[in-house]
């Protein structure tokens, strides 16, 4: 039971119940207002917080929209390769981060089902995921009792985008089965997660599993070449 729950249940009159809910609801509504102002400040006045500078990203959806994905990937690759050639950044971590955020990942959406609480959790998780509120998305994906592999996959992406690399790696590893419909995506995202988590040797081994013609093959080749040539100092004991 939470604080609000307890206070609400203890209240014996409608006035007391309102008194219990009011301060929390006020905060909720204030935050909604702040969200609106944040968007307006950014779009109309160009004022943003540095720590969450939004980037214009391309939109695509995984799994069911492979063709769109392929086109988006080609366009992104074109620009990224251009950037690599022009500015020659040599840090694989930086490049992996760029690849990860180069395009917006959206959930393909809810499949019609029984509108029970589990269905609501899933809907909420997807909503947060698409809004890039990855911490909240993870919270709701975790709440789903009988998680499908799709739920688990998007939970792992929520962890990854939220910077919880170890959780992302554990879950992606658990999802790795030969017949998984997310096999190509898992190979790519787990490689990125390893790089961002400073596990270079595991990242390299994972990148080598991405075969020609598979999703993000060119990007993986670029990362392999960067990682083998830059000879970064490795920090994790397992990489020594």
């Amino acid at each position, binding site marked *: 039971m939470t604080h609000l729950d307890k206070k609400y249940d203890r209240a014996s009159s409608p006035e007391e119940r309102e008194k219990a809910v009011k301060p929390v609801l006020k905060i909720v*509504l204030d935050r909604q207002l702040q969200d609106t102002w944040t968007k307006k400040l950014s779009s109309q006045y160009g004022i943003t917080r540095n720590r969450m500078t939004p980037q214009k990203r391309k939109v695509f959806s995984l799994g069911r929209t492979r063709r769109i994905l392929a086109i988006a990937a080609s366009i992104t690759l074109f620009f990224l390769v251009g950037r690599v050639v022009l500015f020659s950044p040599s840090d694989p971590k930086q490049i992996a981060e760029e690849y990860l955020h180069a395009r917006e990942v959206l959930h393909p959406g809810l499949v019609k089902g029984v509108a029970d609480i589990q269905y609501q959790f899933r809907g909420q998780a997807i909503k947060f995921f698409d809004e890039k509120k990855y911490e909240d998305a993870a919270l709701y994906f975790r709440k789903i009792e009988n998680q499908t592999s799709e739920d688990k996959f998007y939970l792992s992406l929520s962890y990854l985008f939220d910077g919880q690399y170890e959780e992302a790696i554990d879950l992606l590893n658990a999802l790795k089965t030969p017949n998984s419909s997310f096999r190509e995506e898992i190979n790519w995202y787990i490689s990125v997660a390893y790089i961002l988590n400073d596990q270079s040797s595991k990242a390299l081994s994972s990148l080598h599993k991405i075969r020609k013609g598979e999703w993000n093959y060119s990007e993986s080749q670029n990362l392999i070449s960067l990682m083998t040539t830059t000879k970064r100092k490795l920090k994790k004991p397992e990489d020594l």
Partner: protein
Amino acid sequence: MNKNFGLSTVEFDDLVNELRHDNNELFEKIFLSHFGDSMTFLKRNYKSTHDDAYDAVMDTMIEFRQRIIEGKIYYGNLRYLFTKMATQKYMRQANSYKSRPIVESDITTVNHIEYNEEDIKTLAISWEYLGEECQTLLKLHIHANMKLVEIAEQMDRSPATIRKKKERCIKKLMQIFKKHNKTE
């Protein structure tokens, strides 16, 4: 620089009236256009970081809005008041980062913390599931501080109906809240 953000007394009265009807448009127009100036003031005079200045001004806007609604802010020198509040917000925020010896009040259980972040998040989600009519009613009453009699007048209902409706809306909101909390 204009002491009252370019507002005349009549326009200020309009602003108050608009806010009390949960219409934030005019307020946003005035204060968002001065947001950058207020940030610059904090950065220049207090060497605040960009993000700290942003947060302080944002928090001030929320509090300023609330105080206008509650009739605690009067026309006169709005800019000075806003800047002063933003400075106080920033200083409080900055001081909280400074290390200091532990005092008794740090250890004593604080009674006034009656809600936590999880409550806020779950209530925000529950709010999305609440019907539009309930949202409007609760927003007017709780966020715009409007009296039930005024809401009744605006919605062309009796005050008793509105009171009952408000009670039901709160009950409904908490039912959704509890449902979301169950399997957490």
